[in-house]
């Protein structure tokens, strides 16, 4: 068992426009990427639970060529709205760090 933070080279979040937040996990090599992807630990239900969104709001796209997994969810609030706390969306990745990936 390993935590995602120990396997990923990049774990980042960013706006994809003013309404969406996109979370990228990138891995150093194909073996690590495959291990994480094939584990099934990064799934719609897990992301929905972690971020308190519904299943149908989560998009997960594996991107083989860059050994990356892209997750996109709605922002908590529109960028710049009174309830928004992260205009660029750059600090919304932390809940991903502790996802456990089986050996």
């Amino acid at each position, binding site marked *: 068992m390993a935590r995602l933070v120990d396997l990923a080279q990049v774990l980042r979040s*960013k*706006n*994809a*426009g*003013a*309404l*969406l937040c*996109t979370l*990228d996990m*990138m891995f150093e090599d194909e073996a690590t990427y495959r291990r994480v992807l094939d584990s099934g630990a990064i799934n719609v239900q897990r992301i929905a639970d*972690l*971020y*308190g969104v519904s299943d149908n*709001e989560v*998009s997960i*796209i594996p*991107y083989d*060529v*860059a*050994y*990356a997994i*892209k997750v*996109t969810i*709605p922002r*908590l609030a*529109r*960028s*710049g*709205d*009174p*309830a928004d*706390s*992260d*205009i*660029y969306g750059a*600090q*919304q990745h*932390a*809940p991903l760090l502790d996802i456990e990936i089986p050996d």
Partner: protein
Amino acid sequence: MPEMRMMATTGMLGYGYTEEAFRRGLAQKPDFIAADGGSMDPGPYYLGEGIPFVSRKAMKRDLALMIEAGIEHNIPVLVGSAGGGGSDPQVAFVREIAEEIAREKGLSFRMAVIHAEQPKDFIKQKIGEGKVAPLGPIADLTEEDVDESHRVVGMMGVEPFQKALEDGAQVVIAGRATDASIYSAIPLMRGYDPGLVWHLAKIIECAGQVTTPRPGQDCVLGTLTDDHFLVEPGHPDKRCTRMRIAAHTLYENPSPYHLVEPDGTLVTTESEYEQVDPRVVRVRGSRFEASNRYTVKLEGVKETGYRTVFIAGVRDPVLIAGIDGFIESCHERVAGEMANLGIGRESYTLNIRVYGKDATMGVREPVRRTAAHEIGVLVDVLADDEDTSKAVMAKARYALLHTDFPGRKCISGNLAIPFSPSDMPVGMTYGFNVWHTMELDDPLAPFPIDMIDV
């Protein structure tokens, strides 16, 4: 087909680039040089106010080198999304800098200034025709939304750039434009493959973002041929790696495989990335699927009130342990005090965030109990006028400083306030209320061009 070369100086006009990379790039004889000038990442305020989010000095420095070199080598210089949001006042700001550069350097050239602000009547007409649709999780655009908006821009494609160049412009200062249109306009005019053109444009629009080592913005060169393109950094100490280039389509997009432009979609599912040498990456196989409809993105903001901000620290462990209940009681107290002044809760928004606890992620924060020995309280008030905003903040400050809580021993004050004055009025704020697409019959019509002999 002969090679065509382009240089992106910086991912954001005003974020800078090194002169070393720029000179080295120029020596490779690019067919044009360009820079993106905008982003909505800094939020709705800058579009609302019509001001840039970089300094005038930084913008002038970046633009002056480009214009001088463009005139000297007789190649076009393109800037898109000028001034940050690409609205009329932001475009005028950059135009004025370009004119100042021309005066100071004794240069003369033909300049196109392309507008991107959209008249309310035009958007309403398009709503009536059923040509406006949400772009993501937002409701349909209504006429009321449009009336309520303060400023709306449309995101142009390549056509206005191409028209400006056909009409003889050497320098183009364009309003809001898709980042990739800035770099795609000229190669598409010359007949290069749209899949390769759009993909290269998408990669180099962020300039130094695709190079390594990472720190700082810098120039990037793209070279197109009939069946591939090459990307390399301008700076001799930097490299483009296969992974960095492949990863770039992930950045700020919901999908790395499909990137939507006004007249179609760049598809990278079959793109191949190859490291040619330690600094250069070759890409092939990218496709562009043309759409039968021409749609531009609309970005618009409305006024959301005058903001006042206050920040303070809490070091008392009893208060930290009970901070949630304490803040709740402060909200109640402020509401009561404001009612005494005849100001109801509907007249303002009072937002108290606790840094060290959940201010960054709000309800999405998985850690519910802070382990911090000190926390930061950030208070902000929004109200329809500045006086009300300041009045609510004055009460909120007093309430936070002096409201009792269970076990309280620090009875002379609950906060460490770092500044005097403590309350910071920041003026009008804005919120995005238009984030939609609009279908056009003519890609040029909503983007009028002024031709100016500088």
